[in-house]
């Protein structure tokens, strides 16, 4: 029996400099005004894109709490084809290589989207996001349908690590990215709302997750609540291959060089 090498080979994916924005942090394409020093990032990750359009969640909201905030949006997006139509040309002209984040709902839809992206210019990888309660088996099937010409990144919230990470070891997945944890808070009216969490308070669990994944031999993009250069360093020390930035990019007047420049120089 002949061993089919491509079936187990990880596709190389190098992010250089080793910094990206988190999916959902900078929109669907690198808009010139959002960041002044694009050259400090190694790739641009798009907002999550689903096959069909998703409307904003009925009870969309941002709730501040302690050093964190919860965002409940429903991941609105115009759907895959509309996204392609609006942004393909902008991706081609992007100052950075582009990674498209796909909401992995079903095997067939996902495969369709990935095949279509393989023929787009300046796209270096596809990132997959799973629903919070996705099982390891489901995740495995979804991943399998996505493998093809483009390297695959899997985004996992810290809570999905114990369930899904074991499937990724010895798979063809190129990288894993730690994305936002999920949580729940009462809104102004006392109604409980679930959503994604942002802010410095998320960092310790993210760092722990990065450490675990790196120890499993996976190539990890670490992030979650990163606001200082000391945090960036700790992520690399925990074994991260690259670092992702999220809500820090919304602070305005940000000096990216101060945040990540020092670490770059030291490498």
């Amino acid at each position, binding site marked *: 029996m002949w061993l089919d090498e491509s079936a187990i080979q990880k596709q190389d994916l190098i992010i250089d400099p080793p910094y990206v924005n988190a999916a959902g942090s900078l929109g669907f394409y690198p808009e010139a005004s959002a960041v002044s020093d694009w050259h400090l990032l190694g790739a641009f990750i798009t907002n999550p894109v689903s096959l069909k359009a998703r409307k904003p969640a009925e009870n969309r909201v941002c709730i501040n709490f302690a050093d964190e905030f919860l965002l409940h949006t429903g991941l609105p997006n115009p759907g895959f084809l509309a996204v392609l139509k609006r942004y393909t040309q902008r991706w081609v002209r992007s100052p950075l290589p582009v990674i498209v984040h796909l909401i992995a709902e079903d095997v067939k839809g996902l495969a369709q989207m990935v095949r279509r992206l393989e023929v787009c210019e300046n796209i270096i990888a596809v990132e997959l996001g799973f629903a919070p309660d996705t099982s390891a088996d489901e995740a495995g099937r979804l991943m399998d349908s996505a493998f093809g010409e483009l390297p695959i990144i899997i985004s996992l919230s810290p809570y999905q690590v114990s369930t899904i990470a074991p499937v990724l070891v010895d798979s063809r997945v190129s990288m894993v990215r730690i994305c936002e944890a999920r949580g729940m808070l009462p809104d102004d009216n006392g109604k409980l709302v679930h959503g994604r969490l942002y802010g410095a308070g998320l960092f310790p669990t993210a760092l722990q997750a990065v450490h675990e994944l790196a120890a499993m031999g996976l190539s990890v993009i670490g992030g979650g609540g990163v606001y200082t250069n000391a945090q960036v360093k700790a992520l690399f020390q925990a074994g991260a291959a690259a670092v992702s930035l999220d809500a820090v990019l919304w602070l*305005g007047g940000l000096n990216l060089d101060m945040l990540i420049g020092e670490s770059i120089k030291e490498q």
Partner: protein
Amino acid sequence: MDACNAQLIEIWQAPEGNGGRIRVDHPFDIVPGQYMLVRRASDLSSLPVVVFPSSKADNGLITASSLPVDWTPGEQLSLRGPLGHGFRLPASARFLGMAAPNGDPSRLMPLIDAGIRQGAAVSLFLGKLNERASFFPLPAAVEVQPLSALPEALVWADFLAVDISLRSLSSLGELLGLKGGDQKLPCLGQVLVRTDMPCAGIADCGVCALKTRSGWRLACKDGPVFDLEELIDVAG
């Protein structure tokens, strides 16, 4: 102006949060209805606060009542803006109606001032009138009325400005006294839609999304001020 330094000079309690006076280190122009993002320079990770100036002070601005209660005078701030699209008050408008259903007219103040400057008669319709009316100092020329009087008054107004929360937007028609089928607008007007704006457009996060006659729009980028007719038959 990208981001500039500022300082919180003075604060006062207001029913919906603290108001304050901010000294800004940089000259700037802001249209009524546009907003600024303000954060404490010392805060590691808090989101910026959305601030609508209620008037311009020497070297700075007076904010509508939206400052976090733990901000104290003297704090160093970082300020960004002006952002978004503000009101376009027709130069010909002579009878202005202004409505603040939550009883806080401070976001409308710069527009009220502009109306008075161009010689228009200004009527202000306030929710929670009994509790709130005495709180906010208003120019003597402004006639204050309860919110319930708004529908009748719209007959004579030639421009209407409303400050309303995204959550209450669906009751905009009711507020103007429009019945279910009756979609005819009483007059021209614009609506300032108040909502969380965590990313202020940087991420297209969608928290501030609202449905308009032309489809989904973002308050942070396409607003926060929208034409009344864009909202009325969607929300009404």
